[in-house]
């Protein structure tokens, strides 16, 4: 095979990505169009009605956008106090040692557990615990879903942050040590400022993962179509309303669900793009 043919072959193979991604966007936009046309784009985004009584069907995405944002934000808050220590443990305190390798294997395995099994664990272990502690009567809800979601995103945030913490140049740290700084001070005054943008971007990517997580949230959020009024109340996320109702929906409801899918797609694409750009910058710096 000569070089020209080889180049063409590779080029044709690479065309698969524009074709698939174009196909994804095209399919979502054309099938979501009916809902947007019927309700109006902004009305759809801001309406909190979700009723499928024949004749007076009314669909709006606001409860699910709220549910997604609440679970994601809470998951992020719960995740930081664990992922940051893991990153420091692996990337600074025990850098390159066996125990650090063991901890990163543990977090890798956590990342490998399928989300439906996280959902089962949340449902059969965490939910009864939450009921027993009298936090919420039904056990499922935003809080339960966020707690499990937090465990699921710890590995992503931790492994990427650790990578940036590892890259902090030794001479900078040694400089601070020679001035008499303790390790805690080195971490606060040298490691965090240097690795900060990288660590930040790893949390952005973790958010990107949490936004679209489906099965765990579906099994734990309680599946009610109202705007959640507190963190212990039930709700639905964008992904979980799709998982719950897509199979039984048709016509306008199907189109509305696809529209929610399109909005979710746009949000995750945007968040991931920002995260990737920041990571690229942090790697060069």
């Amino acid at each position, binding site marked *: *095979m*000569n*070089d020209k043919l*080889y*180049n063409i*072959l*590779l080029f044709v*193979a*690479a065309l698969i*990505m*524009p074709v*698939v*991604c174009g*196909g*994804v966007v095209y*399919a*979502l936009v054309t*099938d979501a169009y009916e809902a947007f046309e019927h309700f109006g784009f902004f009305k759809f985004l801001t309406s909190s009605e979700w009723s499928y009584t024949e004749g007076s069907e009314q669909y709006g995405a606001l409860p699910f956008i709220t549910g997604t944002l609440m679970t994601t934000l809470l998951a992020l808050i719960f995740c930081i*106090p*664990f992922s940051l*220590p893991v990153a*420091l*443990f692996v990337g600074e*305190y025990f850098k390159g040692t066996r125990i650090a390798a063991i*901890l990163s294997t*543990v*977090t890798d*395995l*956590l990342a*490998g*557990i*399928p989300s*439906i*099994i996280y959902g*089962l*664990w949340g449902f*059969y272990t965490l939910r009864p615990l939450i009921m027993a502690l009298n936090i919420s009567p039904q056990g499922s809800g935003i809080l339960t879903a966020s707690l499990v979601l937090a*465990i699921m995103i710890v590995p992503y945030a*931790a492994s990427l942050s650790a990578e940036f913490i590892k890259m902090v140049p030794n001479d900078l740290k040694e400089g601070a040590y020679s001035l008499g700084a*303790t*390790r*805690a001070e080195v971490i606060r005054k040298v490691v965090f400022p240097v690795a900060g943008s990288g660590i930040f971007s790893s949390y952005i990517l973790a958010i*990107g993962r949490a936004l*679209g*997580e*489906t*099965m765990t949230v*579906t099994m734990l959020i309680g599946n009610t179509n109202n705007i959640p009024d507190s963190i212990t109340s039930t709700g639905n996320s964008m*992904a979980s309303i*799709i*998982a719950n109702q*897509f*199979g039984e929906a048709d016509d306008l409801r199907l189109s509305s*669900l*696809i529209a929610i*899918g399109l909005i*979710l*797609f746009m949000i*995750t694409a945007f968040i*991931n793009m920002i995260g990737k750009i920041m990571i690229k910058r942090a790697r060069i710096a």
Partner: protein
Amino acid sequence: MDKLKIRNRLAKDKALKWGVCLLAALTAIPLFAILGEVFWRGYDQLSWSFLTEPTPTAYKAMKAIEAGEPIPGGIANGIIGTMLMLGMAAVVAVPIGILCGAFLAENPKNRFAQTVSYLTDLLQGTPSVIIGIVVYIWVVVPMKGYSAIAGSVALFVMMLPLIIRSTEETLKILPASLKEAGLALGGNRARVMLKVQLPAAFGGIFTGILLAISRVIGETAPLMFTALGCSFIRFAVDKPISAVPLLIWEFFNDPNLQELIWGASLFLLLFVLTLNLTAKYLAKRWNQ
């Protein structure tokens, strides 16, 4: 005064260190809690018949529960469905993914390659439930029904970016001298790629494929809208078919079948974690 200050700083240093160790150790708990629960509740269900018999009907399961017997049947329909769909997806995704990854590695500065690279990130970050919707629109609607083909298209779309990335990254870290030596010996680029670069990168690419499989094998949401599920063993590609994660979801929703959740979960978990650990081990050996 100074002494007190220093003591204070040292105490803070120690507190941070122990805090980090404690919280990092706590992070390992969920892994063992989940593994423990699934093993504990699932190990006595795993048996030969569990792996070779299809799912019982809810009626049969109810009868068995009433009689106080263990629920008959197993998850063979799911195992076969998973294997069939994964196989079909991998047969297409592996060659295309490797070629596409090779394209990215060979043309790092090219405008089109950068677009492809960006789109790979985009697809990799797309929530799997959206892939499910899209494949429903692509395949299920025109074929007028759920099918194993639709399920495997969904798995294909999810595997593709993972394979592209791992191929690209592995090829990029090969020493340039390897390729140059091949070219200097008179091989053209295709020959050097096929006979020198790909064999040298085999370990990394293979690891990437294993990880891609382990990533998509537990996916549930996209299969709900494409493969749907089926309660008996079937090899037809144009009909609805089951998969192990779909069965877990079915068992979860059917009070009569709840006993079967843990055996199926244990099977899935063992499979995924073995793949993961194997991949990690191979990657380590390959790096040496």
